[in-house]
């Protein structure tokens, strides 16, 4: 925050919803989740998605375009808790030391 006292909204109101995205929590991470593509059910046929459902930091990005499925971790926010690796039914995700 670099605004002066007379530049911030009155009464400390936060006027931009979801602006915590500016605060990167990726630095908390001790272990980094890595996906092995060949086992992932989302990449295979667009099912499962348990990692996305249970990720507390919304750091799993599942996208679909023209029937092709893509998978990515958002390492800006991933805190490395490992829930995705633990809940993956095919053990497609493993953790590596940072």
């Amino acid at each position, binding site marked *: 925050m670099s605004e002066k006292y007379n530049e911030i909204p009155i009464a400390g109101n936060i006027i931009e*919803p979801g602006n915590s995205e500016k605060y990167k*929590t990726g630095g908390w991470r001790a272990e980094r989740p890595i996906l092995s593509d060949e086992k992932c059910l989302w990449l295979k046929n667009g099912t499962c998605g348990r990692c996305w459902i249970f990720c507390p*930091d919304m750091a799993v990005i599942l996208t679909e375009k023209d029937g092709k499925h893509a998978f990515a971790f958002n390492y*800006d926010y991933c*805190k490395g*808790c490992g829930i995705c690796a633990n809940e993956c039914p095919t053990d497609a995700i493993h953790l590596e030391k940072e």
Partner: protein
Amino acid sequence: MSNKPAVSIKDMLKQDLILSSGHRMCAGCGAPTVIKLMGMALRGPTIVCNSTGCLEVATTIYPYTAWKIPWIHVAFENSAAVASGALEAINAMREKGHYKHEHVDVIAIGGDGGSFDIGFGAISGALERGHDFVYMCYDNGAYQNTGIQRSGATFTGQETTTSWAGKVIPGKLERKKPLAEIVAAHKIPYVATVEPSNFRDFIMKFRKALDAEGPGFIHAFSPCPRGWRSATEETISISRLAVETGLHPLYEVINGEEWIMSGPSKRVAEAGLKPVEEYFKTQGQFKHLFRPEWEGFRKKIQEQVNHDWEVLKKRCGVE
């Protein structure tokens, strides 16, 4: 936001998330997942009243907020009172023609301290007045935010910083307050217990609570790796284990009279309860119970859980 709750992964991905990344809940916390699943059940414009607790503190550290929907922070004890006030204010404004939205849902969220102990009077009052809102308690078993003090939701035998396990006592001696049963005794239209690992069950129940004419109450189980001394990656599996051991059975109560056991718990009833030791083993806060001097105490806990489970099965008419 759609007319049907999103329960399949394809529908979920289309929904707007109500909580964004960058919040400062601990790694592996169950509460953001609980809120994410709650967002899947919403049916339109929604206002959230959040009483003080981990969720409130860590999602809205100034100058940031992780919430993408209207959100009010209120004191520890009065989220139910503020929710009923917000609801009645909207009704009054609508009568005068100052309010445009056709329908707005109001949800009050409190932690277990804010719901079981401090805010209990306000909840009871709001339920009795019959406002059409949903109260959700996310229960992580102690005052985790202020330093893991015992609350009404703490399990028997759980070690906290105000119920230390030592030579004299094995953690908390008292029972956990049966909040969902107490709320059901208010004869409100809908009460349900949920937990995040059975996410379809969670979302369907939350939508039922929103659809109910009158107050709805959701008791959500939410593991806390920091306070429970458990591994961060086991949050969801511990939550599942709590259902399988009968410590957090899943059920619905309609109008305070009709008890229905939910699918995941019915399957547990068929297969038989797992011993509570399996649940205790996953967490450091129960490790003292495995010392030889507390073996009798551990057996007593198991007997209590078995007894409560039989009572619940009888209520729900499950053999």
